[in-house]
């Protein structure tokens, strides 16, 4: 049956009206023909959403507001710490997006007027929108660790959980550490950006130390009892860095064994937990996290500190016409990863285009894949396919999962290379 025939059938059945209201949105464009989208944050979620709206519908005017001239990817940044990558290799600009007709504005958003549909920036400009997409990443709960704050993080005890100057600082600290010194990594409670990230970081720092400072140690103080890809990481640490033996380079302390950190003495380079104090030569604190600052200012968050959304459109369930994607959103069962942000950006872009045009919102599909490199030639991954059913995002049963536990050198080497190709393709998909 052709579309037209089906429509007249629906009409004669008297079901047309119900079907239409359930499936379509009235276009909200101000002044009739204009369709304006403002995207806040040019990271993994925001940049791809801006680009894909333009790919799907050239009649939509897209403005992307990003605080920094260049973006440094977090993925790959652990390999900067080990010297396997340069800072330049994880640096991206916005010329590609301009090429797609995205209006790129380098400025910081300080407020969103949700009822007036207007975004305000630090330089005093304001931008009207029909729909706004917010992808500001995470911010940190500094208050959870006494003595820790942003100025300490920028100068002495990094988080390096947003790639950039802190990544380079942490690398330099590790490389100039005294022989036989101790690197301490404090790992955060759930939920946080990139669940396997702290443990890949541990492996990459160990890789550097093994070759340059072999008597040095890494102490991982974890808030949790277990972590992502636990079996694969601990087996990898064992294989490459002696984990679990007397001569292990890595020691991991779980939360209940004293891993929870309560305060830091910056001058004394000491972390204090419920039970013990730990002194380090280099300390990296990855604090507990919440949605990006602007999401709190705008009132897009709930008590959890993250932003509730509707999984088919990523529209905020608090403020209409504002969509939240990426790490800031409550997107579970999708993880807080760059790949998930990429998938969410595209689902949101398709929904926004449909809503602006008064079309039916397309059925979404989502994927996540995360690679981690334990040592050169040893890559592992986790993957999952998700669908939308019964009003929420679901893992597709039987799909996804981890690299098999049994070590297979050929497969591990290929996984590392696939991880590098993933890096090339996702960055090109986002910024190219």
């Amino acid at each position, binding site marked *: *049956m052709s579309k037209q025939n*089906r429509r007249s*059938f*629906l009409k004669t*059945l008297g*079901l047309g009206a*119900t*079907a239409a209201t*359930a499936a379509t949105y009235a276009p909200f464009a101000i002044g009739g023909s204009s369709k304006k989208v403002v995207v806040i944050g040019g990271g993994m979620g925001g940049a791809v959403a801006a680009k*894909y709206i333009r790919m799907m519908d050239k009649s939509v005017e897209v403005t992307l507001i990003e605080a920094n001239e260049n973006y440094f990817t977090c993925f790959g940044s652990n390999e900067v710490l080990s010297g396997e990558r340069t800072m330049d290799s994880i640096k991206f600009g916005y010329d590609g997006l301009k090429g797609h007709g995205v209006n790129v504005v380098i400025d910081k958003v300080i407020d969103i007027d949700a009822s007036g549909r207007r975004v305000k920036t630090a330089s005093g400009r304001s931008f009207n929108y029909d729909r706004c997409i917010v992808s500001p990443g995470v911010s940190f709960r500094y208050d959870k660790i006494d003595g820790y704050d942003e100025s300490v993080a920028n100068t002495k005890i990094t988080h390096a959980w947003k790639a950039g100057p802190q990544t380079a600082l942490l690398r330099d600290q590790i490389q100039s550490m005294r022989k036989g010194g101790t690197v301490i990594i404090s790992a955060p409670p759930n939920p946080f950006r990139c669940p396997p990230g702290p443990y890949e970081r541990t492996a990459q720092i160990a890789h550097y130390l093994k070759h340059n400072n072999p008597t040095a140690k890494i102490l991982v103080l974890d808030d949790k009892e277990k972590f992502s890809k636990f079996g694969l990481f601990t087996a990898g640490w064992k294989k490459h860095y002696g984990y679990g033996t007397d001569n292990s380079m890595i020691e991991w302390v779980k939360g209940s064994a004293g891993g929870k950190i309560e305060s830091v003495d910056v001058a004394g380079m000491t972390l204090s937990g419920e039970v013990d104090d730990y002194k380090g030569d280099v300390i990296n604190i990855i604090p507990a996290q919440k949605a990006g600052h602007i999401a709190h200012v705008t009132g897009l968050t709930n008590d959890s500190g993250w932003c509730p959304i509707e999984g088919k459109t990523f529209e905020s369930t608090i403020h209409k016409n504002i969509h939240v994607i990426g790490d800031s959103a409550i997107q579970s069962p999708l993880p807080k990863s760059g*790949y998930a942000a*990429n*998938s969410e950006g*595209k*689902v949101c872009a*398709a929904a926004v285009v449909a809503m602006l045009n008064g079309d039916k919102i*397309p*059925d*979404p*599909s*989502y*994927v996540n*894949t995360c690679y981690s490199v334990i040592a050169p030639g040893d890559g592992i*991954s986790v*993957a*999952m*396919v*998700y*669908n*939308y*059913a*019964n009003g929420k995002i679901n893992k*597709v049963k*039987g*799909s*996804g*999962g981890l*690299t098999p536990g049994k070590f297979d050198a050929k*497969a591990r080497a*290929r*996984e590392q*290379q*696939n991880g*590098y*190709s*993933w*890096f*090339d*393709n*996702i960055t*090109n*998909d986002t910024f*190219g």
Partner: protein
Amino acid sequence: MMKDTIIKSTLLVATLALGSYAQAAPSGQALGYTCAGCHGTNGASTGNAIPSIAGLSETYMVETMNAYKSGDKASTIMGRIAKGYSEEDIENMAGFFAEQEVHKNTNQSFDAAKANAGQALHEKYCDKCHTEGGTVADDDAGQLSGNAKLFMQYSLADFHDGSRDMEKKMAKKMKRMMKKDSDAFDKLVNYYTSGQ
């Protein structure tokens, strides 16, 4: 006859409209967009280990995805991912990629002398099924010319050591080729990487 059809359609439409149609059906585009993180925008890969899938024949892609799904074709990760899609999803995404233009990654390094030798080997042993470097969709065969270099090395190695099945005629030709020239893989990969 006519009446019967109308009644059936009416029932179908009524079911659709009443929302008992629970199973979502993402379009080929919606599905294809999610592959881009690894395979590049619209399936055009810029990496050297993950292949381009833009412009692949629909038949070939459906076959390949089903082989990953069933485990008939070994993989590091595609088996885990392919299991997330229904028959219909796979057909839809294959339709989307079949509509994209074939992509050749011309940023990969290759050895010109080996590429020349590879060209002769290709014409002799491979060209019959992979015409024009495997870029002709009608062949229902994989893309070779300009595809990801490491991926092609992996594939040839897997065919050779038996971890990946191949058609009889291909096995026969490969055996004959390797007997004559044990460096044939290296030459072929350099030829394909050159994107000629």
